[in-house]
C-alpha cells in the first residue's frame, strides 16, 4: 500500500475481500472496485464484446449528461447511481448475491473498460472524453464505497506516499499545522499530484510540496489513475492500426466511439428543433462567419460579447431553444465556474431569448448588419470573414472547408472586390456542388441560388439541400460530426483555432 513508513491500515487486513464468499475470493475479482491495472484475458464473444462496451458507454454518457443538466451534487449522484444500477451494477461482497453473479459483474466492468479504452484511443478528442468520464466514474464510485473498499482500492493503486511524522509535522509546518485536525495523518507530495486540493486551497503548500491529509488521499488516487490511463491510451493509439487485421473488431470499435455523436437535426428554425448536443454536428452547414465563431469558441472556451451575440442569435435562429442554449453555452464556457457563468452570461442568453430586460425577442443578425456595423476589434471573432479577414486568412479558411485552389481563388477575388455576400453565396454553391459530386450525382450542372442575405439563410439552404439530395444514409454521413459532440468541451487539436489573447 503505502511506502514502508506508512501507518498500518485499520481493520482486519483483507478489508471487504475477507467478507467475500470463497469462490469470489479465489477468482480474478476478489474486490469490487478496480483501477484496471491489468488487461483482462480477452476470451469474449463478439456479441458480449459489443454489449458490454455499449453498457459502459451508457454510463459514461449519463455522467456527462448529469454534470451538464443536473441540479447540484446530490442530483448528479442520484442520476449516476441510477445509470450504474441499470447498465453496470457492481454489488459488494456483503450482498447476498450468488458468487457467480458477483464475478460476472466485475468481469463485465473490467472488460468493458478495456474495450472502450481501445475504441476511444483513436483521436486526441476521443481520448480526452474517455479520460474525463472514466475519472469521474472512479471518483463517484470511490465516494460511494465503504471504508474497506476504499482501502482496497488504494492498496491496488500502489501509491507512493511520503508520510510526515508527528515530529516532522511540528518542525516543518509550525503554526500551519493547526490548519489540519490534530490527529490527522499527513503525507507530503509534489503539488502537481493534488491539483484539486491545491485549486481549492485545501492543502498547505511549502516550496512546491503539498501536505495532504489522510482524508484526501482519494485525490492522489485519482491523479495517479488519470496519469496511468493517459499513458495507456497513448499506447493503445499506437497499437490500434494493427488491430485493422481483425475485420470483426474494427467496425465495432469505430461504431462505439462514434456513439458519442448525438441525435440528428430535424428541421430548421422551429425552437427546440436543435439541442445543445447537435450544434457541433451541424457546424459543417454553417456559413464561414459562424464556422469561425464556433471554432474559436471550442478553442478558447470563450467568446467576447460581439461574438456571443452574433453566434448566439444565429443558433437561436436555427432552432436552439433557451434551455438548450443555456446548456450549450455553459458547456462551451467550460473553464468558468457555475457561479461566473450564472452571474456573467446566463442573463445575457436569457435576454437574447426575450426573457430578461426589455423582453424583446431578438432576431438573428443579417449579413448586412454583420458587414456594416460593429467591426471586430483585436480579440474579437465576430464579423464577416469575407469582409473582415485578410486575404490570406480568408483563403486558409476556405481551404479548410475543402475547396479547390481554383474555387478559393475565385471566391477570394469576389471578396477582394467588395462583393462579400456574392462571395458567400458562391461559397455555398460550391459546397453544394461538392456534396453532389460525392453522392455521384451529376456535378456538371452549376448550382445557382439566390444571394445570401443572412447566415441563417445560408444554413437553411445548405442543410435543406443536403436533406433533399441524398438518401437518409448519406444525410447521416454528412451530419456526422468531425469532432464528436461529446468532446465539445475539450480543446480540439486543430491548428487553425488560434488561442486567446489578453489585453491590458
Amino acid at each position, binding site marked *: 500500500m503505502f511506502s514502508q513508513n506508512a501507518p498500518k491500515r485499520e481493520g482486519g487486513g483483507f478489508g471487504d475481500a475477507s467478507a467475500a464468499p470463497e469462490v469470489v475470493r479465489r477468482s480474478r475479482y476478489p474486490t469490487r472496485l478496480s483501477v484496471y491495472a491489468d488487461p483482462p484475458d480477452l476470451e469474449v464473444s463478439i456479441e458480449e464484446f459489443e454489449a458490454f462496451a455499449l453498457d459502459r458507454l451508457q454510463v459514461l454518457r449519463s455522467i456527462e449528461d448529469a454534470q451538464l443538466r443536473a441540479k447540484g451534487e446530490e442530483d448528479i449522484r442520484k442520476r449516476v447511481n441510477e445509470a450504474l444500477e441499470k447498465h453496470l451494477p457492481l454489488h459488494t461482497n456483503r450482498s447476498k448475491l450468488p458468487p457467480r453473479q458477483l464475478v460476472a459483474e466485475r468481469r463485465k466492468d473490467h472488460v468493458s473498460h478495456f474495450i472502450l479504452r481501445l475504441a476511444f484511443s483513436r*483521436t*486526441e478528442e476521443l481520448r480526452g472524453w474517455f479520460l474525463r468520464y472514466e475519472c469521474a466514474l472512479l471518483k463517484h464510485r470511490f465516494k460511494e464505497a465503504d471504508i474497506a473498499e476504499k482501502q482496497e482500492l488504494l492498496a491496488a493503486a500502489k501509491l507512493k506516499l511520503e508520510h510526515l511524522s508527528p515530529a516532522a509535522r511540528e518542525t516543518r509546518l509550525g*503554526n*500551519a*499545522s*493547526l*490548519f489540519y485536525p490534530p490527529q490527522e495523518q499527513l503525507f507530503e507530495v509534489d*503539488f*502537481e499530484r493534488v*491539483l*484539486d486540493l*491545491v*485549486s*481549492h*486551497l485545501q492543502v*498547505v*503548500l*511549502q*516550496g*512546491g*510540496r503539498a501536505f495532504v491529509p489522510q482524508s484526501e488521499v482519494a485525490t492522489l488516487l485519482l491523479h495517479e489513475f488519470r496519469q496511468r490511463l493517459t499513458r495507456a491510451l497513448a499506447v493503445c493509439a499506437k497499437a490500434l492500426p494493427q488491430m485493422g487485421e481483425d475485420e470483426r473488431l474494427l467496425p465495432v470499435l469505430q461504431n462505439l466511439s462514434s456513439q458519442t455523436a448525438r441525435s440528428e437535426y430535424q428541421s430548421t428554425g422551429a425552437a427546440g428543433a436543435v439541442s445543445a448536443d447537435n450544434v457541433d454536428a451541424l457546424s459543417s452547414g454553417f456559413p464561414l462567419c459562424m464556422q469561425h465563431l464556433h471554432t474559436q469558441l471550442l478553442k478558447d472556451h*470563450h467568446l467576447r460579447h460581439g461574438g456571443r451575440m452574433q453566434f448566439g442569435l444565429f443558433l437561436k435562429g436555427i432552432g436552439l431553444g433557451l434551455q438548450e442554449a443555456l446548456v450549450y453555452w455553459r458547456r462551451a464556457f467550460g*473553464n468558468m*465556474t457555475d*457561479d*461566473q457563468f450564472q*452571474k*456573467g452570461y446566463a442573463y445575457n442568453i436569457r435576454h437574447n431569448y426575450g426573457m430578461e430586460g426589455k423582453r424583446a425577442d431578438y432576431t438573428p443578425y443579417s449579413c448586412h448588419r454583420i458587414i456594416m456595423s460593429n467591426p471586430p*476589434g*483585436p480579440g474579437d471573432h465576430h464579423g464577416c470573414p469575407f469582409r473582415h479577414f*485578410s486575404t490570406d486568412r480568408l483563403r*486558409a479558411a476556405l481551404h479548410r472547408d475543402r475547396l479547390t485552389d481554383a474555387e478559393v481563388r475565385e471566391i477570394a477575388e469576389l471578396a477582394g472586390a467588395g462583393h462579400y455576400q456574392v462571395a458567400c453565396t458562391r461559397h455555398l454553391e460550391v459546397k453544394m456542388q461538392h456534396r453532389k459530386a460525392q453522392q455521384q450525382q451529376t456535378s456538371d450542372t452549376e448550382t445557382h441560388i439566390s444571394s445570401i442575405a443572412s447566415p441563417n439563410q445560408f444554413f437553411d439552404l445548405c442543410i435543406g439541400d443536403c436533406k433533399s439530395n441524398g438518401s437518409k444514409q448519406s444525410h447521416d454521413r454528412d451530419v456526422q460530426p468531425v469532432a464528436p459532440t461529446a468532446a465539445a468541451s475539450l*480543446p*480540439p*487539436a*486543430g*491548428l487553425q483555432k*488560434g*488561442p*486567446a*489573447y*489578453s*489585453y*491590458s
Partner: protein
Amino acid sequence: MTREETAMELDDDETAELSPMTLGVYYRRLFPHNAYYKWLNYNAPATSTEFTHREFSFTINDGIYLRYQSFKDMGEFQRELTRLSPSKIDIGAIFTAVPKHAKSLQPGVFRPVAKELVFDIDMTDYDEVRTCCQGGSICSKCWRLMVIAMHVLDRALREDFGFSQIMWVYSGRRGVHCWVCDERARQLDDAARKAVAGYLSIVRGGAEQGKKVNLSQRYSHHPHIARSIEIIEEYFEDVLLVDQEILLTRERWMKVLAALPDEELRKTLDAQWSRRPDRSSVEKWSEMVDIVEKRASKRGAKFALATFERDMMLQYAYPRLDENVTTHLNHLLKSPFCIHPKTGRVCTPIAHSQFDSFDPFAVPTLSQLLKEISGGNGDPAADKSQEQSQEQSQRSAKSFSSLVGYVDIFETFVASLSPSSNTHTSQSLEF
C-alpha cells in the same frame, strides 16, 4: 483632493506617436534584443528550441495580427522586428515544432508544450474597490493596490510554490503582468495552471454579491492567508481607509455592510454613521470592527462574524487575477518592452526591491524616448542620417535614454536564469 485632480487619464494621449516609422526607430535603437533573446533562449549556449519553437504574434498597422511568427536565431528576430515594427508583440507558447510551419503540419503534431506561468492583474477589476478612478484611468492612489498585489503574489509564488525566477512587468497602462520562468513552472499543463490560479484567487463572486471572501476560521492558520493578511495589514489603513475612503459616504459604507452577516449590526452601524457621516473611514472601520468583535464573542454568534474583518480586508485588498490568462498554456500575453498602443508607454520590468517605489507615471513614453535619442527634436527622419553607424548609435541610445534603468533590471533578471535541463539546440531537433 477631488477625483478630477488626482485621476490621470492615460488613454489616447500618445496614440498619434505610434507609427511604423517611430516604432522602427524604437526597435532598431532602443529595444534590448540581446537580453530579450537570452531570456527566451534561457541562457542556453546555442540557439535552442525554447527560442526557435516559440510563438510570437505581431500586431502590425491597422490591427492585423500575424500569428505563429517564429525565428531561427537572434539575428532573424531582430531583423523581422525592425522590418515589421509591430505595434504590439505577444508571446505565446513553445510548441512541438517551429510555429512558422504550423499550417503545413498535421493537427496533433503541432502542440504547445511549455510556457512561463503568467499572471495578469488589471486595475479595472478593482473598480468596485477603488473610489479615485474608474475604467482605464489610474492614479498614484489606486496604483498602491497593484503594489499590494505584487507583494502578496510574489511571496506566495516563492514560499508556497517554490518558484524563484519571477519577473514583474508594468503593462504600460493600468496593470501588471507576472512571468514565472522557473522550469517547473514552464512545464505545467493547463490543469496545473488552473489549480495554481485557483489557489491564488481568493476573492470570488460577481458585482451583486456582498461577501466575496468565504473562508472558514481555520484558514487563519493557512500560511497563504496568514501571510496575505500580514502584508495587507501594512497597507490597509493608508490605502483603503485614508486614500480610498471606503466608508466615506453612505453609498460606500452600504457596500461594506452588505457583506456583514448580521442584520441587526448592519442597521446599528448604518444608523450610527448616518447620524455622524463626517467621521473618517478610519474611525468608522474601527467602530465596525469593535462592534462585530463583541458580537462574535457572544455565544451562538455566527462563525462568519469572527472572520469578518479578515475577510473584508481580503475582499478589498487581495489581488484580483484575470484567471483566463493564467490557465491556458496556449494563451498569449503582451511582451515586456512592447509599447502600449494606447498610452505609448514602454512595458517595463519592475524590480522586486522596487514594488513600493515603482512609479508608472515615470515610465518613459515612446515620444519621450525619441526626443531623448535625437537630441531633443524628436524627428525620426534625423535618425536616417546616422544609419551608417547604426551599431554605435544603438549602443549610445540605449545607454543614455531614460529606458536604461529598466533595461538594467531586465538584464539582471535574465542573467539570473538557469539554463533548462533538457535544452536542445536547434540543430539537434530541427527536421
